[in-house]
């Protein structure tokens, strides 16, 4: 406070200097931010991963899982059962799984759940099968979860889990209970199980109470390998959880180490690390940059479809999905047994833990499986990128003061009045912008009531949202027209601009601590345009700025981003009409997906877009479309 005023009431000298060179400084900071982001991926500016938690003792034991026969038998039997019962339409043979789990000496139980989802008429019903392997001599206060989704192509993984369960049951060293969960309907089943385990009911997901518990869950490993992808050469380690949560870095490190111990290559986002000699070369750099970028995008838009682990975050459980796959090369003979040993090693390490995971990083992004960028390193980027927004807000505010001073020849009282009046005049606009956001947020809840199953499909739901999201921006314009008695002069627009800039800086700053991915993406794309948005007087400036803002409209931005992504990933150059259609379809999917995630998994993405970003966008939209008369 003191640094912005002097005892004589005037701003200090450095502030005047800042105002004079504000535009250059803004550009400089923004570019510096981008360069900084690009730099921290370079190996010289980040660190090698390491184990913080000594108790893990990773890879120190001799792996003993050798049950190739048992694994194959379980998988074969399961395939036969599924084939004979359901034919080509696969289904989950619950009783067979229960019987097998009981016969290998586990406590096996079933859990029914019913999910009511927007876009799907009727309820999604399913049954999870779970089995608790009680640790001998332990009082069942801690547990580790092994989760496998039941799908037509994960029968091999389930066979491996069964075989691993029977192996673990024969060992005497467990200090924590092991819980094996086989979920139906992927993450919906997992979420149903977790919500029942923690007795945290979800209104759109009715889950039966569980018949057995194993105490506090210390970690969860999800296994997801597609049948027929053997021999495995790689193991993809997926760690992004809903709402940008990340598991403790020690757990990720542990699985990387275990994968390498089994002579398999760990990957992130199906992307191999640069080789040792390539690390400091340009080729290596692009690999690191690509993995980092994928990590940031994955964190920003983390959905439940990345694996069963993604829903554990909300319950404070460290979880990772391991997904082995083969690249066709049969260099290493990675079979199911190797994956079993990988899991065994992971479980035994977690079993060694005396305390819950707390030592290593929770906020990071990974350029490769062996390098990490910690929160202390990446946060300055947010500061640099959002600096221009704050500087601009400050300058605009000070300009407003000066304008009042120079224009008003009369006494200071009149000057003050105009200022407070213009501030009051924008209040309705601010309220309207935020109410529009709130309306968008509650729209799915209004349209879709979880109890009364109104059958809305994806298209209808999206249309409703899109219509409102696109028509709402007219709102402030109409109000401006109709409330003729209020004088929305230029100063009031300037006040609105200050409010919008400050709100943007605040929201990005706060979000950066929780979800770096989405904060940095918003900062990169929204910050520059928001900084230059002013009530233009020239037609060209106005048109350009409107165009930029149209592109930034959350729905449009989503559609464009998906279109660009599709165009880049599709091997054959697509026709524009096909591309547009494809992008539109994907936008529908993503929008409805966000709503579904917020209903079932408590994802905050939809809330972030509607309650935080959309109102800010509307304020800028109002500023651009203000016509001074």
């Amino acid at each position, binding site marked *: 406070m003191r640094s912005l005023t002097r005892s*004589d009431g005037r701003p200090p000298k450095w502030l005047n200097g800042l105002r004079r060179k504000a535009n250059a400084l803004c550009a400089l900071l923004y570019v510096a931010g981008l360069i900084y982001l690009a730099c921290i991926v370079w190996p010289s500016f980040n660190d090698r991963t390491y184990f913080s938690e000594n108790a893990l003792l990773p890879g120190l034991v001799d792996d003993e899982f050798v049950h190739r026969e048992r694994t194959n038998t379980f998988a074969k039997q399961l395939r036969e059962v599924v084939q004979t019962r359901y034919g080509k339409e696969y289904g989950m043979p619950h009783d067979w799984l229960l019987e097998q789990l009981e016969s290998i000496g586990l*406590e096996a139980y079933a859990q029914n759940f019913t999910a009511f989802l927007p876009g799907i008429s009727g309820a999604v019903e399913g049954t999870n099968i779970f089995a608790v392997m009680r640790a001998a*001599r332990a*009082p069942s*206060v801690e547990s580790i979860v092994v989760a496998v989704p039941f799908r037509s192509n994960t029968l091999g993984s389930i066979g491996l889990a069964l075989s691993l369960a029977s192996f673990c049951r024969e060992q005497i060293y467990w200090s924590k209970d092991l819980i094996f969960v086989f979920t139906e309907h992927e993450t919906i089943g997992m979420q149903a199980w977790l919500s029942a385990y923690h*007795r945290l009911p979800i209104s759109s997901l009715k889950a039966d109470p569980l018949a057995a518990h194993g*105490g506090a869950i210390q970690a969860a490993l999800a296994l997801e390998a597609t049948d027929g992808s053997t021999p495995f050469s790689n193991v993809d380690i997926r760690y992004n959880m809903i709402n940008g949560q990340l598991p403790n870095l020690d757990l990720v490190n542990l699985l990387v180490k275990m994968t390498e111990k089994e002579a398999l290559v760990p990957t992130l986002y199906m992307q191999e690390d640069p080789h040792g000699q390539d690390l400091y070369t340009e080729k290596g750099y692009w690999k690191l940059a690509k993995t980092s970028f994928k990590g940031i995008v994955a964190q920003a838009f983390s959905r439940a479809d990345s694996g069963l682990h993604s829903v554990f975050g909300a319950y404070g459980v460290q979880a990772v999905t391991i997904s082995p796959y083969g690249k066709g090369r049969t260099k290493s003979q990675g079979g199911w047994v190797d994956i079993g040993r990988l899991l065994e090693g992971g479980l035994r390490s977690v079993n060694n833990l005396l305390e819950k995971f*707390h030592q290593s990083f929770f906020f990071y992004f990974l350029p490769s499986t062996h390098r990490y960028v910690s929160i202390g390193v990446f946060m300055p980027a947010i500061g640099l990128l959002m600096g221009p927004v704050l500087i601009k807000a400050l300058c605009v505010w000070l300009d407003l003061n000066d304008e009042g001073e120079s224009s008003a020849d009369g006494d200071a009282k009149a000057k003050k009045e105009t200022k407070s009046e213009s501030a009051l005049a924008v209040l309705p606009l601010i309220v309207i912008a935020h109410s529009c956001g709130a309306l968008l947020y509650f729209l799915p809840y209004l349209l879709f009531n979880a109890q009364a199953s109104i059958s809305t499909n994806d298209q209808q739901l999206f249309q409703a949202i899109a219509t409102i999201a696109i028509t709402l921006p007219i709102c402030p314009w109409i109000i401006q027209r109709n409330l003729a008695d209020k004088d929305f002069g230029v100063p009031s627009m300037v006040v609105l601009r200050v409010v919008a800039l400050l709100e943007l800086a605040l929201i990005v700053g706060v979000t950066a601590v929780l979800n770096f991915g989405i904060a940095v993406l918003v900062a990169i794309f929204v910050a520059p345009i928001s900084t230059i948005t002013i009530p233009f007087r020239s037609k060209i400036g106005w048109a350009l700025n409107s165009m930029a803002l149209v592109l930034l409209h959350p729905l449009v931005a989503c559609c464009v981003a998906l279109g660009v992504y599709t165009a880049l990933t599709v091997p054959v150059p697509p026709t524009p009409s096909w591309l547009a259609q494809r992008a539109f379809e994907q936008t529908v999917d993503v929008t409805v997906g966000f709503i579904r995630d917020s209903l079932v998994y408590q994802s905050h993405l939809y809330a972030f877009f509607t309650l935080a970003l959309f109102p800010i966008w509307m304020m800028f939209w109002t500023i651009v479309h203000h016509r001074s008369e």
Partner: protein
Amino acid sequence: MWLTRFLLCALLCFHRLFVADARSDVYSEELVIKRLPSQNMAAHFRFTTTSAELGVHYDLFPRVIGEFVTTYNLSELHLSLTQGIWRTDYWGFAPQPSSPSGAQVYAWFDGDSSSVDERWANLVHSLSGFFCTSLLQIVPGLTARPQLSFRPAGAVSTGIVDFSMGRYAALSSEPVCTENLTPWKKLLPCKEAGISSLLHPIKFYEAQYHSLSVDVIQLCPNGASTCARPNWQVSQNLLVVTDLPLGSKVLNWNLRSLFDGEIYKKCDLAKSSHILAEVDDQLNPEYSHTPDATLKFRDGRKFVSFDVSKTKLPLNVGAKYKDRLKVKSPNPPSISIHSYIGGSGQQDGQIVTRLVNRDEANHRAVYTHVIPWFLRVYYHTIEMDCEGGNSNAIGEGVIQTKKFTPAKDRGAPYLLELDVNLPAQSTCHLSIDFDKSFLRWTEYPPDANKGFFVPPPSLVFRPTDWSNVTVLGGQRTTTMEELNGAVTSPLVVMYGEALLVSLPTPDFSMPYNVICLVCTVIALCFGPIHSLTTKCLLLKFEDKDAPQTLLGKLKAKLMKIVDKVRRKGKAVESADVKKKDEVSKKTD
């Protein structure tokens, strides 16, 4: 010389004989081996010593226990140390006296009620020292005074139970190992002979569950609740459950395979010494040593009994099965209790207990839970929801009586005692919400991030069908006595799971960072706030002539200093002049 030696020897022999005949203390030992419904093997050792009087002379009654009783003026003492948890759904009702995971100690005192707290604290210290446990933290933070459960099991001197004289505490974090078994074994009159020669720690600590306990009670003749001179009885129980032979699938067992030993010597001090094996008809076992065995029956159950004092030694009792192991689905007993923590996060949570009544009839039961003070529970959130097949039973379970003792920070735990009615064929969820509190930084144990243990809740009820009971016998009677027609003790105590709650834990590994951050924030805030609040703002007129450029400012400053120095010099000069003047005046 030779004669005197002979006489002395003879005298000693006579004395031995005489004392043996007139022995007032009675020691009996028994081992009950049973195949549990889940096909695990359970072995229950019970060593009982009874003495008419505790005082100066001790015969078979363990002197240490006698001294505890006399020093602290105890009326009753119960201590149990358990590793693992008794899995009621799979194994049936726990043999009585049952025990929760970890340590449990409760005692009833006689005499002056004002000194009970002090005597309790000293007793806990003594027990802790003797049994090599770390029970000290239960005083006073975990000590409760239950009213509805954990009542005296034996006779009470006054005939009326005074609740202010009882103390109860459980400590779930207590690990149990051989250092606890050794002092426990030392209390036995026969350590290397008779049934106690089977107590080899290696096999016990390999098992799925093992529990050892010491229970000291007073007994009146004919089971009266009070009498002038009650007998003192110490019963030492050890319960072991072995794992299923999943690898070999062979069900055969014998003493050697179960305990790594046989009985080579009988215990001469024991009045009765029996090994009892319950016959499980379904699996067609053949018991070895059949000529020496006698069959005993009770409530349709069949037991093979081996009298160790009369059989040919070495004794290796065992059974051979034709069938192989087939893992069965559980057949849980009529009532079971399970507890878990609901909720997630660092702020609050819920303690949930699932009470299942599979019986056709309603059951009255007493639910007791001692909750440490650092979980701030809310009385108004106590809720009991029941669901069941019987339409009358659906809805809220009936809580007949609620007894709730609030906690004192660092002084006493919450005590929740509920007299509940469990509707027939129902599953009830009993829940209570809590907030997690912040502890002082010295109160966190080592490995603070492991979490904090909450002792398990207990459920006491009266079963209607005694065929459900796993091992006969209870606090007052042994299995052998019950087989011979003694009355069964009427109550079953069962425990839920111990709970692990993670409290908000400071990052102990980063004190340096924290100190730096806090100091920086304080320094940044302190400067401006201090100067704004202590300085007074004055209107300052701008000096038009003041130099504007950096060089000009420096020059002006320099000039000021030069000016000052010059002025000082002048002052000194004038002073010198004055002095000189004075001097000259004086000389004048």
